[in-house]
């Protein structure tokens, strides 16, 4: 098995979230993943695991943080450190991610900036057609998950907002 990409992890977490399973413990060569719907639970056997995630928000425990995304899945590797209450803003479709309305202009938002639900946070471009993406929730921008001018796929996390 090749190392899973961050997209694989998202798919796994999605599957887990929608299932009625309580726990998922996956171990393959060079990679381990433990998911639980009980925030108090810890992996009961094997190597010590990091705190278990709560699945109301994107979070995962990476047995091997080295399972960083390749160029194929440019989601920030730091996803492991995402607190449970942060909300992910996701791409509505495949396209190119832009932080600013035009080259050289100031970005729509910076880390630490307070946003309203209807604040524009970035652009997704498809063949010169630009669509703005809104925060969707009032809060503080905590992390960008994509580099400027990078291709993103449908449902890929663009940035995280901590609700207020």
């Amino acid at each position, binding site marked *: 098995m090749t190392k899973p990409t961050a*997209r694989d992890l998202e*798919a796994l977490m999605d599957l887990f979230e929608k299932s009625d399973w309580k726990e998922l413990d996956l171990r393959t060569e060079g990679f381990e993943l433990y998911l639980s719907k009980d925030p108090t639970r810890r992996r009961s056997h094997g190597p010590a695991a990091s705190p278990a995630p709560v699945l109301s928000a994107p979070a995962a425990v990476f047995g091997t943080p080295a399972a960083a995304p390749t160029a*194929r899945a440019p989601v920030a590797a730091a996803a492991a450190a995402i607190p449970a209450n942060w909300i992910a803003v996701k791409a*509505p*479709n*495949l*396209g*190119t991610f832009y932080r600013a309305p035009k080259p050289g202009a100031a970005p729509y938002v910076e880390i630490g900036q307070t946003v309203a639900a209807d604040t524009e946070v970035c652009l997704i*471009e*498809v*063949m010169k*057609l630009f669509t703005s993406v809104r925060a969707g929730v009032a809060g503080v921008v905590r992390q960008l998950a994509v580099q400027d001018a990078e*291709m993103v*796929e*449908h*449902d*890929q996390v663009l940035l995280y907002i901590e609700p207020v």
Partner: protein
Amino acid sequence: MKRLLIANRGEIALRIVRAARALGIESVLAASAADRESLAAKEADRTVILGPAKASLSYLDPRLVVHAAKATGCDALHPGYGFLSERTSLVTLCEENGIAFVGPTPTSMEQVGGKIAARELAHGAGVPLVSGSGALANAEEALAFAKTVGFPVVTKASAGGGGRGMVVARTAEELKEGFERASHEAKEAFGDGTLFLERFVQTARHIEVQVMGDGNGKVLHFGERDCSAQRRYQKMVEEAPGAILPADVRTRLHESAVRLLSSIKYRNAGTVEFLYDVERQEFYFIEVNARIQVEHPVSEAICGVDLIQMQLKVAGGEPLALEQKDIQRRGHAIEVRVIAEDPDRNFAPSPGRIRRWQAPTGDGVRLDTAMHEGAMVPPYYDSMIAKLIVHGADRAQAVQRLQGALRDFTIEGIATNVPLLRYIAAHPDFIENRISTRWLEQVLLPSYAQRSAN
């Protein structure tokens, strides 16, 4: 060609991934969120998710598809069949962005895309069309026309279709009497009683010719297919060759298809469809399909070629290495379409999880599918889940192999048409090749329903 974007799903996407791999071309699959876990996604070198499951927000958006091709560094795009495969705007977008489209030029696509334009093209290339009259003032004019083309004829309303104003006449008396009735009916339905007349094809077969063009005027054909077993214009069984054709008619048919598409220097794979009048032994042009078709494997089977690989080579600028004399047709091939629909419930779609999937194997048996045990048939798209193709030394052996392969095919978890396909393969009309385009709906399905009720 170094890297190919595949803008499709299901068995054809998988088939293109494998054809690309065989030629040393990298593949990028552009899929919807519903197909993230598909076999094609697993086998492609890379998969990108265009958008949500809904086709209009993913597979049917030309801009998304071309953006994906550019962003992933693809130099070519294969549209498969269905979805965007015959959308001129996609071809144009590809051209503007330096991406080789695996298919015809936008000009060709337009030339053959519209029914009227295509008919004019066919006429110009000397390809036979169903004889039709202009608007007729009265029954006397209709009679005069009928005498020139011969009975039976059918009246049609100039102002609309849907069966209104249509009367089939086999004699002069029937036409005289029927004309007034049809005209009245047309006037009632459309406010205009104007009629025209067409030759009526009593017993028709759907026959089509597979071609491949190099874009410079060289057009090869790969023989014909008989796709007469249809339900609501959806093909269910396809064969090659069309075994009922007399040799001289077959030759003229091939020549017509090649003449038509070389007249526009057609590029890549295409199919010319004809209606074949069994009684008169005449064929008439219907339309051109400017794409690879679902049923291409039966032509591959009898010609011993890989049409998808050939498509990729042509799109990559390679010349057509073959000559017509190199294409020898051998034996008989039959394809059946396995669909996730329940023939006992008026073909209601039956998406869901495949619990058991036991596919047939054996001599001359090929299965094109992206399904497997545990796979999900999503509810959003066409319900075809597999194509079973058998090849034999002659039609009788092909039919036997079809019967055996269908017997060995087990699918559980969802309803499919496999029981119906078994019934077709065992039916005397099918075994003796006595079917027409109306046979499946008028003879086979009522008989199948009867059997189910017992």
